[in-house]
């Protein structure tokens, strides 16, 4: 069984990687890459050559291509000791046009060109854009080389970058005392309360392991999951963080800052990450509160994360669906062709045939009439706002479960073993509960992990209609905003969930039904 499972998991992972590859092919190779600037205000304010260079920089940042400005090439030569500082200073001053270059510059530009063209790069020289002896806005000359990142490289870098283990060599700058420190008294709580923590210096996160009052009480920053950086949806934030960070308004409490200052604030000091030179260049408040460059902190907020809202609504509706659908579906099968079966069938036809948009709006209209809140408000403490989204999600899954349970039960009731049990004198109730239900429920059980994990993903229409800040709209928003990093990240997340839920479904099914085995037994 273990061997079989490992095989299944590996095959699943391979197909997830294939999905990511196809998605990358779709969005990086087939789609017009200028579209990522559609909502970028910096881009729209830039002109001429500067705009071209900005495009290159951004494309490099988001993984489209590798971009090397001429100056970077010279810096590389300088670092390797191939040229001296004097030659560097001389060579870096290239002219407005190729004809205006000095001999040294011309030599190094040629070397730059040959070096990169032999590696498959495209060389580009943008001559100065002049207007009466003055540069136009953004008209400075540029020399650079660029090369599209091949799909394989991109895929490899993406997949190896998913898990990032924090280490004490993360910080590039020269700092003293790199290392990990274990303390029993977490300084965030003033250094007196007993609360073990591991604090790093030289790592990306300051707190690698700590306890706090929020579920699951022990937290770590040692291993971070990175699914892809957002470009426009939640700029420069990773998809996984976008999905898991809390939302809503700030929660203020008394915070003891590293410098000893005690103030009212919403900063979550446990989330501190390293930002180079941030203390030196920081505001007065930052200088007052922090003692090192670990100044980037997230804020405590009162709401759940995107995934949290989707999951709460999803999981309750899944529970509700199973609790309601199993007795109703059974009843329909028992009273076949009676009134209850007919009513159930009408309900199923309604849900199956009518566009989901139509009945969700119908529920919203009906719900608002009887006084339930029709829109979601993160800051409200009312639990009533959850009611309509949950019902909207539960009703279609109830119909679906009822339909299949009824079908499976009727199939079982016509089978020979049931006739045999009946002729053996078992009561109808006994046949139903001990034989028919047990057999009919097995395919239903297969879907349970899928629906539980599926509630992490969220529901597109329901969340839109009720304005729930959930994860369901992340993909559609990302597509509308051409946010490639988010698209790839979300696609990977979806594919992983679906692979895992099918495997879990199979395991659950074989646990419930001993006849089902995925390993062929030796005979």
């Amino acid at each position, binding site marked *: 069984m273990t061997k079989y499972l490992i095989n299944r998991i590996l095959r699943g992972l391979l197909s997830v990687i294939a999905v990511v590859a196809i998605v990358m092919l*779709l969005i990086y190779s087939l789609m*017009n890459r200028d579209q990522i600037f559609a909502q970028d205000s910096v881009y729209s304010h830039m002109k001429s050559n500067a705009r071209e260079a900005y495009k290159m920089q951004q494309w490099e940042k988001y993984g489209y291509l590798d971009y090397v400005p001429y100056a970077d090439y010279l810096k590389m030569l300088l670092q390797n000791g191939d040229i001296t500082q004097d030659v560097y200073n001389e060579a870096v001053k290239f002219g407005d046009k190729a004809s205006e270059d000095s001999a040294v510059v011309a030599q190094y530009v040629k070397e730059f060109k040959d070096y990169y063209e032999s590696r498959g790069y495209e060389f580009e020289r943008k001559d100065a854009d002049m207007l009466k002896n003055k540069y136009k806005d953004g008209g400075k000359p540029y020399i650079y080389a660029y090369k599209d990142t091949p799909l394989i490289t991109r895929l490899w870098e993406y997949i190896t970058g998913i898990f990032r283990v924090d280490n004490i060599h993360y910080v590039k700058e020269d700092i003293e005392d790199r290392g990990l420190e274990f303390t029993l008294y977490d300084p965030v709580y003033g250094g007196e309360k007993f609360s073990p923590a591991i604090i790093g210096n030289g790592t990306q996160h300051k707190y690698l392991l700590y306890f706090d009052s929020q579920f699951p009480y022990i937290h770590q920053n040692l291993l971070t999951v990175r699914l892809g950086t957002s470009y426009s949806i939640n700029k420069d934030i990773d998809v996984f963080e976008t999905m898991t960070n809390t939302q809503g308004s700030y929660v203020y409490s008394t915070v003891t800052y590293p410098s000893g200052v005690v103030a009212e604030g919403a900063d979550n000091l446990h989330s501190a990450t390293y930002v180079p030179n941030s203390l030196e260049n920081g505001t007065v408040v930052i200088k007052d509160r922090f003692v090192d460059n670990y100044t980037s902190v997230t804020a405590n907020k009162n709401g759940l994360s995107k995934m949290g809202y989707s999951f709460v609504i999803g999981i309750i509706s899944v529970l509700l669906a199973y609790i309601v659908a199993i007795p109703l579906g059974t009843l329909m099968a028992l009273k076949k062709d009676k009134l209850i079966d007919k009513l159930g069938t009408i309900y199923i*036809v309604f849900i199956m*045939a009518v566009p989901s*948009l139509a009945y969700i*709006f119908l529920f919203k209209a009906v719900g608002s009439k009887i006084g339930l809140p029709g829109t979601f408000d993160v800051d409200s403490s009312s639990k009533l706002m959850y009611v309509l989204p949950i019902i909207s999600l539960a009703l279609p899954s109830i119909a679906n479960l009822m339909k299949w349970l009824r079908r499976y039960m009727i199939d079982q009731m016509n089978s020979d073993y049931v006739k045999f049990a009946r002729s053996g004198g078992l009561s109808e109730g006994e046949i139903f509960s001990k034989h028919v239900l047990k057999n009919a429920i097995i395919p239903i059980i297969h879907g349970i992990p899928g629906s539980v994990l599926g509630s992490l993903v969220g529901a597109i229409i329901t969340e839109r209609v009720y304005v729930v800040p959930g994860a369901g709209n992340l993909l*559609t928003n990302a597509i509308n905003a051409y946010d490639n990093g988010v698209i790839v990240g979300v696609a990977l997340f979806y594919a992983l969930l679906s692979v895992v839920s099918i495997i879990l479904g199979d395991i659950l099914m074989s646990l419930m039904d001993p006849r089902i085995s995925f390993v062929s037994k030796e005979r």
Partner: protein
Amino acid sequence: MKEQLVNLDEFNMSEEELFSQVNHDSLSSEKITAPRYSYWRSVFRVFFKKKINIIVLSILAVVILFTYVYPLVIAYDPEVTPYINLMDGSSKHLKPGAAIDKFGFSLSWIFGSGDKGQSTFDAIWYGSSISISLALICALINMFVGVVIGAIWGFSKKVDIFMTEVYNIIANIPYILLISVIVLIMSASFWTMVFALTVTGWLGIAYFIRTQVIIIRDREYNLASRCLGTPILRIATKNILPFMTSVIVTLAATEIPSYISYEVFLSYIGMGLKDMSLGKLIEAAQNAMVTPGWEFEFWCPVAVASIITVVLYVVGQNLGDASDPRTHM
């Protein structure tokens, strides 16, 4: 039984008159007499036996008449003035009563007017014709490709291994992503939409058919047929296809309404057609939905879309039931 016994003496006939010898006819004993059976005639006999089917079918006829004939009769064009009154502010967002008062009674105004001052009724039927055509074309392509590939997939073990891996990969690509990328690369036209909905849409159908074929493929009668030397193609078309007819009809019955729903859904999230379709109308009326007094504009296309999908679904399901030979007894 005893009361029915008849006393032969009552007839006052001789033995010869009552009985005669029938000779053994070897020719007629070779004939097997069975009631005449025509498959499709029986399908329609069973289908029309249910009163509800006649009602639903007549609603479907009316719907089709309105979607395909009505826009032609009034020569509807979504861009031209008798149908939109952009300049006239007072003709926008009217309730049916007000619209009839303003324009005089005609069929066009029984649903009131929309945000461009257009007749909601006319717009709905024009939109329906695009939505229904889209659904029918997509269903036709997907069903055809799906059934053919599903049959091959189910029959060949080599193809099965390959196709199952393909299915595992393609089924995991978010459908919305695929559609929107295709729409972004090409354009949001009718045929782009058809391409986007069919490029991977057949895969689910093929997978379903494959499972059905595998179940029937190894039944004893097919084993016997194979032993007698029937070629695979003949087994597929004569032994298995008749078995699958009801499954295919039932599947088609769920497919067609699902494409209409899908088109509505895609329009709602802003990835739908550029042309006027039911989804586009519903999307355009979204703002009217939250404006008090204008909700009617939103509910009309939603109601018509629901009626169309329900009618198509019910007709298809019942046709599927009727095409199952086990119901022909």
